[in-house]
């Protein structure tokens, strides 16, 4: 409970440099002009390699930045704010944290400078949890197995995984089977990826199929489950930072619009009904920041190898239960407060709306995180 929710001077400096780069190199129009590409490779190389942000959480001795999740969070806030189409959350957070939890140094070294990208091959709506993977049916919060779509046979993987986010350009695939965690080269024979026409134009989905693909096992049993649990928990928390960034942009954009749009002879921001709605929105966004900052702080102080402790699980569930709906609501409100303009293709807010909607489903969604909380804080269902 002694988590400092403020930004440090270093945080603010990191934010300034990331924001300056994104402003220059990731204007939202690029998404619409690059629609045939699933993500922005040029932007990735600036962010990951030139700025060294891919390996922020990788230890220095493995070629990384030696920082951690707090710094990742600053980057994620800015990526959310810019709806930037780069697989940072998938590679620099979820895959990196999963590998950290496995102490899989060989691959961490490859990710550290951003020249290679990795992804954990699970459907985008997979919640963290001791048993991971598919959303459990009603009332069941932990199934007996994870990675049910793929099986291993003599170090070769066969099976399918639908709807993996930010996976189209990954070089390394971390593939869970029922009780093991494998690593696969994306170019290996037998891997096929089909791009999905995705609702979110800044975070595309990919369907995978594996046909006897040679694989290397990096963890098994409890270690594999623990690593996956950690990696997905980190993803849920850092997604909350991204959701906060997205919501904050929506608030700022709505405020700007209300100050500059005149109707009835005055700026519409002077109309009380709109003012009160924006006041409520400010409260929500500020709460989202506090909740996300708390979760990042708790997770940053925990040990990946030990898996998320109880408070880290509470903080992560809280972050997703709160921030997902806030991002969606802010994006919806931002569309509405822009009136006709917000309903067009030519204004960026639709990209925020689509991203917020995908994010609201990612890592399980608010509903499943509330259910997870019920178990963690002793509020059992009937």
């Amino acid at each position: 409970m002694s988590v400092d929710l403020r930004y440090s001077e270093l945080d603010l400096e990191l934010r300034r440099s990331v924001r300056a780069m994104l402003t220059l190199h990731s204007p939202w129009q690029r998404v619409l002009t690059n629609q045939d590409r699933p993500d922005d490779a040029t932007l990735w190389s600036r962010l990951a390699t030139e700025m060294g942000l891919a390996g922020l959480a990788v230890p220095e001795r493995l070629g990384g930045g030696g920082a951690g999740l707090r710094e990742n969070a600053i980057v994620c806030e800015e990526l959310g704010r810019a709806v930037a189409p780069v697989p940072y959350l998938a590679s620099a957070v979820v895959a990196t944290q999963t590998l950290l939890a496995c102490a899989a140094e060989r691959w961490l070294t490859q990710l550290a400078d951003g020249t290679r990208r990795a992804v954990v091959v699970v459907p985008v709506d997979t919640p963290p949890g001791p048993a991971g993977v598919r959303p459990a049916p009603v009332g069941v919060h932990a199934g007996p197995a994870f990675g049910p779509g793929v099986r291993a046979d003599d170090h070769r993987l066969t099976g399918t995984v639908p709807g993996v986010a930010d996976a189209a350009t990954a070089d390394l695939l971390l593939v869970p089977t029922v009780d093991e965690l494998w690593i696969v080269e994306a170019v290996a024979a037998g891997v096929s990826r089909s791009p999905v026409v995705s609702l979110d134009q800044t975070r595309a989905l990919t369907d995978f199929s594996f046909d006897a693909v040679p694989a290397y096992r990096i963890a098994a049993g409890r270690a594999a489950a623990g690593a996956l649990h950690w990696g997905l928990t980190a993803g849920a928390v850092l997604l909350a930072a991204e959701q906060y960034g997205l919501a904050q942009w929506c608030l700022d954009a709505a405020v700007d619009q209300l100050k500059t749009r005149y109707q009835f002879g005055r700026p519409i921001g002077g109309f009380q009904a709109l003012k009160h709605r924006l006041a409520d929105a400010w409260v929500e966004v500020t709460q989202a920041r506090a909740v996300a900052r708390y979760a990042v702080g708790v997770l940053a102080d925990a040990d990946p190898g030990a898996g998320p402790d109880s408070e880290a699980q509470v903080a992560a569930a809280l972050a997703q239960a709160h921030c997902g709906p806030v991002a969606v609501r802010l994006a919806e409100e931002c569309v509405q407060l822009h009136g006709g303009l917000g309903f067009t293709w030519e204004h960026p807010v639709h990209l925020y709306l689509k991203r917020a909607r995908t994010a609201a489903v990612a890592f399980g969604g608010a509903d499943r995180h509330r259910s997870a909380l019920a178990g963690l804080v002793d509020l059992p269902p009937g």
Partner: protein
Amino acid sequence: MWKDRLSSLVTEFLAGHDPEVIGRTEFLRARFDAGLAWIHHPVGLGGLDAPRELQPLVDGAFDAAGAPGSPPHRNPIGLGLAAPTILRHGTPALRKRLLRPLWTGEEIWCQLFSEPGAGSDLAAVATRAVRQTDGGSGAHTAGWIINGQKVWTSLAHRARWGLLLARTDPDLPKHQGLSYFVCDMTAPGVEVRPLRQLTGDAEFNEVFLTDVRLPDELRLGEIGEGWQVARTTLMNERVVIGGRPVPREGGMIGVLAEAWRNRPDRRTPALHDELLRLWVRAEAVRLTGLLVRQQMVTGDPGPEGSAVKLSYAALTQAVSGLELDLLGVDGLRHDDWSLRRPDRVDMLGRTPGYRYLRARGNSIEGGTSEILRGIIAERLLGLPTEPRTDRNTAWKDLPR
């Protein structure tokens, strides 16, 4: 008495006009001329001065015979907005010229009201209509020159005519300096460009009007009384949007209920309760629509229509959002982001993502929910207006 007379008129008409033999357009023209189009219209304008509430009887009789009627979705603005406006404000010549091809669908209509700077504040339109002057004498001639830009114009790319609100006197306060025209969409200087929405589709258009010449005969109402004419159009707009009768589980709640029934794997207790809340709300909106229609004895639209539109928009948005929550990753699969130009909105086809995105427009188009709340507060509850600074200022001096 009217009932019997209408029944026998329809029977008689069908005896003389076999829809299997005569072409569709010819049949509709003949039906119009027989006064069996809008039966409450005057004789000669598609009607018989018959009671409006008997219209369903006539339509039903033609339907039963497999005969064509005017397809409402082909010319929605013509039938819903242009027809009542022309009937009320048009000169005899205009009514005669415009109503028949409107009803038969031979001439499609669009609405040239909104502008980039005049959305909720529609009375602020800046499109100028200037009296054409004779080059030599400087005297007014019988025509107008129109310049300006309109936006959110559905069907402009198919329309023969447009309902045009334009400013004839910028020195007057904004509501007083407007006039209302029928715009010939084939006139030189009318340029229509598709306007793309967040769905990727371009249902709407931008319309650029550059030195468009319109004869004075195409004016509806007096010069400077354009706002009064526009109110007739607007009142009918909200009825068109909010007033359709729906059966239980009609519309998007039915899509959601089916998704729930088909996807037991995605159900959770929280989603279940949200679904039930929305199901209840959908019934409340539906029954309120029924109540409003039952009370609308005269057929005249009232501010209650605004309330139905308001709650319908919010419901549709909530329902389509819950569909995405329910479907999880499956709801994130879209069909196509390429530019399409649909003639009408099909909320029930396509993907859940499309439904969700398109529903965002329900609270913006045809009067934003904010404007509708103001109408309810002032006209149904009698609450005072806010202090206004723009009512008595010359339009040209308003801050913008």
